[in-house]
């Protein structure tokens, strides 16, 4: 948008004609009708939009076209699967405590080499509000909000209680989100 | 054809008026009264009084009865239930006696004979005719009625206006 400096008149008494708001209504109608006719010609003939990217129809024709969400988008929470084949989660319970609808339920156990790991990690998909506090609370970057918004609907509520196997995603697939929360969201200067 | 319409409209208006009196709920009673006004407008139209018929619907059924409805709804006038709804024989007797007292002179003095009417002049009941009469012969009652309405309007405004501090 070009920045124009407009002089704004305040505290003026309107003339009778202006008080009836008819000129204002006509001005408003001119703007909407401009949009209407340009879009109408564009829908029919396409040439009205050439060179005017800000004029095109904003609708994304899902499911033929689709939208890639921005990096800050909070989709379904997923557990990060490290390179060694084990989840990064150490079952500390901070995400369970931070979750507002209390949809996470963890039972921890110890491995043979002394590492803690979640024996059972249950995330109730019917309760999750996608707020991202689990991601913020986690000290190990083990749970992140992916950009998955498609596979969230089921016909059966019992299928929406996600166990650990449903939640694990390899680390390479979540590189973008991990970089985001490292640099932009929870960096040192933002804490 | 005319007799059929007259019987229909007249019977309907009597039935609705009875409904307006008998109905226990005030809102139903008001709706019945609106229907009665409508039928009366139909009867006016049958007698070539088109302007009066249209004005009857516009003013009476359209505006005045709406104000009746407003008052009923705003004051939440309810049907009487329980102890208050028992029959009140003395009032009913009084109502029958006074209705009879009004009805008897009507029948004895006027009814029974078929009155001869003059043929209505052409242009009877049109806006031009009514307007001409109202503004020439009957100008004084017209102006007095409008002053009366003005007094009612001013009175209503004064009654409801709160003092501006």
């Amino acid at each position: 948008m070009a920045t124009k400096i407009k002089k704004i008149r305040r505290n003026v008494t309107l003339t009778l004609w202006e008080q009836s708001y008819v000129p204002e209504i006509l001005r408003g109608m001119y703007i909407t009708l401009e949009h209407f006719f340009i879009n109408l010609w564009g829908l029919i003939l396409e040439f009205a939009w050439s060179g005017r990217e800000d004029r095109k129809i904003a609708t994304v024709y899902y499911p033929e076209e689709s939208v890639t969400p921005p990096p800050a988008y909070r989709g379904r929470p997923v557990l990060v699967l490290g390179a060694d084949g084990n989840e990064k989660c150490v079952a500390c319970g901070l995400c369970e405590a931070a979750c507002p609808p209390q949809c996470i339920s963890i039972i921890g156990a110890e491995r043979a080499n002394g590492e803690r790991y979640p024996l059972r990690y249950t995330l109730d998909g019917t309760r999750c509000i996608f707020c991202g506090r689990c991601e913020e609370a986690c000290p190990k970057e083990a749970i992140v909000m992916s950009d998955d918004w498609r596979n969230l609907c089921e016909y059966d509520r019992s299928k929406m209680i996600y166990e650990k196997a449903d939640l694990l995603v390899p680390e390479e697939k979540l590189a973008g989100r991990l970089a985001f929360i490292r640099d932009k969201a929870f960096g040192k200067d933002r804490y | 054809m005319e007799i059929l319409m007259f019987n229909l409209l007249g019977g309907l208006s009597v039935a609705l008026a009875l409904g307006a009196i008998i109905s226990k709920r005030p809102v139903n009673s008001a709706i019945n009264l609106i229907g009665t006004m409508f039928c009366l407008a139909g009867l006016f139209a049958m007698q070539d009084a088109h302007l009066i018929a249209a004005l009857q619907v516009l003013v009476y059924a359209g505006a005045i009865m709406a104000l009746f409805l407003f008052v009923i709804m705003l004051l939440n006038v309810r049907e009487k239930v329980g102890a208050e709804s028992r029959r009140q024989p003395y009032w009913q007797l009084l109502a029958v006696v006074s209705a009879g007292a009004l009805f008897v002179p009507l029948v004895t003095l006027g009814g029974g004979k078929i009155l001869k009417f003059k043929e209505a002049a052409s242009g009877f009941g049109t806006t031009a005719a009514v307007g001409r009469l109202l503004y020439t012969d009957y100008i004084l009652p017209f102006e007095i009625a409008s002053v009366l309405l003005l007094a009612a309007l001013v009175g209503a405004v004064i009654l409801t206006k709160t003092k501006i501090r």
Partner: protein
Amino acid sequence: MTLALVETAAKIAFVFGLNIGVFAPLLGWVERKQSAVMQDRIGADRADVFGFTIIGLFHTMSDTIKLIFKEDFIPRGADRIMHTAAPALALIPALVAFTVIPFGGHYTLWGHNVNLVVADLDVGALFVFAISSLAAYGVVLAGWSSNNNWSFLGGLRAAAQMFSYEVAMGLTIIGLVMFYQSLSLVTIVEKQNEFWHWGIIWHWPAFILYFTCAIAENKRIPFDVPEAESELVAGYFTEYSGMKFIMFWMAEFVEVVTISALCVVLFFGGHHLPFVTDAELISGLGGALYPNFANLAAMGIGILTFIVKVIILIFIQMTIRWTLPRFRYDQVMALGWKLVLPASLIWIFIVGVGILSGIMPRP
């Protein structure tokens, strides 16, 4: 006798078929599509029949079928008769008001005089206002009979708004009635044969005032407070679903058409083409040689012109709806009583002076 009956039945079928069958569903589609195109988006265009989506026109059908199958309930504690009667009371006046609107002129077809209006009353304009004033009852009863506090308040507010603007609406037309010297809409259309006799030429302030009052009467945006789609759920018809809900919506759309038709008849010459009088049209189509077919063709052109003008006015109403924000309720009432009513009274005075002094030559 029977021919007159058949003719009247045909006219009634045409008028009501046009209103309910064509205009009401079409207006639902127009509202979605026009608003979408104005707001830089595509409207609803996914409903298809065997793979054909004709720019979303099937959505009206699918919406109607869906709403018919919805459960029709009456809320607990509500007045059953009033709850059922209110949508009818809202819809019927909007339809009945169309009976006095002439959608064509006088034509002689095979020796028979055809007047394209369902009922040629000599108090036509007053009849329309009388019948529209009954639509307020549907609103009040809908609000009251829902046993819901907020619906009740919405219904009362809507009714107060409608009654305020009815008064002003009647007064705005008086100047026009003085000018054309008749209350009958057929006579008013007849007198607009020439372009310079159209109502809009001399009475454009009356057009603006009447348009405002009519939109307020119909509770369209900007006078949308009773419905207030984004604030109250649905105002006075919150507790309605299924077929009754459709009746309220249809009443609103049919009244949009009625208002546009009235504006066309009073201000824009009805069925007349702008610079062509009726006689010129008939003789231009070969009236001397084939009078019947010329009259038939002129009748068709007249009806088509009327419909085109009504569509243009509907388009303007829809544009206003999607352009303006909503008035606040006290602004609505102040506008009605403090601006429109005095303005219409002053306009009557101006028209009187103009006619008496000869400035406005009467047709």
